[in-house]
């Protein structure tokens, strides 16, 4: 039996499709190079270390569930089996939260990119996305904790959709088109990544889930040649959670973030899934 094992699992972000996915539209998820690790020495307590931000939709819960099930598998001396790790993590998520789609634990287990869509209650599509191009470095800017709870954001969209179904459903359809365009960009190429991100952000602003403050940051990033969109539920007052940012001139972006006193860190999209970091 192993004396010491350390496993780690990545966080994830939603590249496109937040909110719309609740109403049956597709979402594109990606594992990111922020990881949670769990180490265990026989007879000792588990040591957890993570640089995945908590509470902003970056998959810290799924990373924990996946890493823990991987650790158990290794400590039990069983063969490394991603499907088994994924299934166990799914069960943990189910116990914790209710009825997970399985998207988060799947992208965290296998890494890379994942397309998800709930067609009807009993039928959903999961598809790992094989990318054909190397992606540039991305950045996350933390605009801060939204004043509203995420539940209030979801409620806001639900009420808006009840009052004006046509307008909101149209925005969801446009978001779906962007999500498809992202998929096309990743798989067969074509399209302008910066433009896709900007269009996605514009639609999320139209939906009303972006604060004026966050919107102004995204616009300033566009002005200096980059592109940014919120990733996750967003926020209407002051902050909107995290912004996913793309800029080919990293120094320009970092200079901008410093000038505006914004927290920024780089992330690789399509990160490797759960892995063993150390065993002996």
């Amino acid at each position, binding site marked *: 039996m192993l004396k010491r094992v350390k496993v780690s699992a990545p966080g994830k972000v*939603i590249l496109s499709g*937040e909110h719309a996915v609740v109403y049956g539209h597709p979402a594109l998820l990606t594992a990111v190079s922020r990881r949670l690790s769990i180490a265990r020495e026989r007879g000792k307590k588990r040591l957890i270390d993570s640089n995945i931000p908590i509470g902003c939709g970056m998959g810290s819960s799924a990373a924990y569930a996946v890493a823990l099930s991987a650790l158990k598998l290794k400590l039990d001396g069983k063969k490394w089996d991603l499907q088994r790790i994924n299934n166990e993590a799914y069960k943990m998520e189910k116990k914790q*939260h209710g009825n997970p*789609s399985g998207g988060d634990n799947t992208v965290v287990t296998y890494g890379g990119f994942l397309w998800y869509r709930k067609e009807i209650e009993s039928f959903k599509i999961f598809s790992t996305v094989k990318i054909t191009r190397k992606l540039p470095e991305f950045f996350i800017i933390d605009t801060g904790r939204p004043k509203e709870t995420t539940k209030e954001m979801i409620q806001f969209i639900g009420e808006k959709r009840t009052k004006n179904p046509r307008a909101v459903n149209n925005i969801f359809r446009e978001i779906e088109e962007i999500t498809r365009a992202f998929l096309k960009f990743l798989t067969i190429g074509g399209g302008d990544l910066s433009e896709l991100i900007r269009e996605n952000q514009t639609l999320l602003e139209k939906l009303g889930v972006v604060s004026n403050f966050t919107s102004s940051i995204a616009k300033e990033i566009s002005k200096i040649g980059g592109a940014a969109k919120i990733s996750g539920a967003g926020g209407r007052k002051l902050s909107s959670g995290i912004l996913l940012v793309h800029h080919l001139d990293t120094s320009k972006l970092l200079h901008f973030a410093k000038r505006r006193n914004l927290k920024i860190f780089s992330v690789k999209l399509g990160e490797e899934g759960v892995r063993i970091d150390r065993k002996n």
Partner: protein
Amino acid sequence: MADIQIINVNVGTKENPVVAPRVNIGTEQEPFFVPPHALKPDTPEGTEYWNLVANGDLELREDELGEILAFIEDHAKKG
């Protein structure tokens, strides 16, 4: 939410039971179980739950989503 009753429910299968704390926000005849933290959206666990909903990682039918929201609102009014 002091008056909510938390019970242990099998969220696994008969053959492979997994017991978890849940609140029944439905009726006795038509139960609808949710984890307690879903009803506390301003806590870290609640934030996590609602982030999963927004990102599509929790499957809720529209009527179920409406039910949870109504339950939280009802209880907020009752104080």
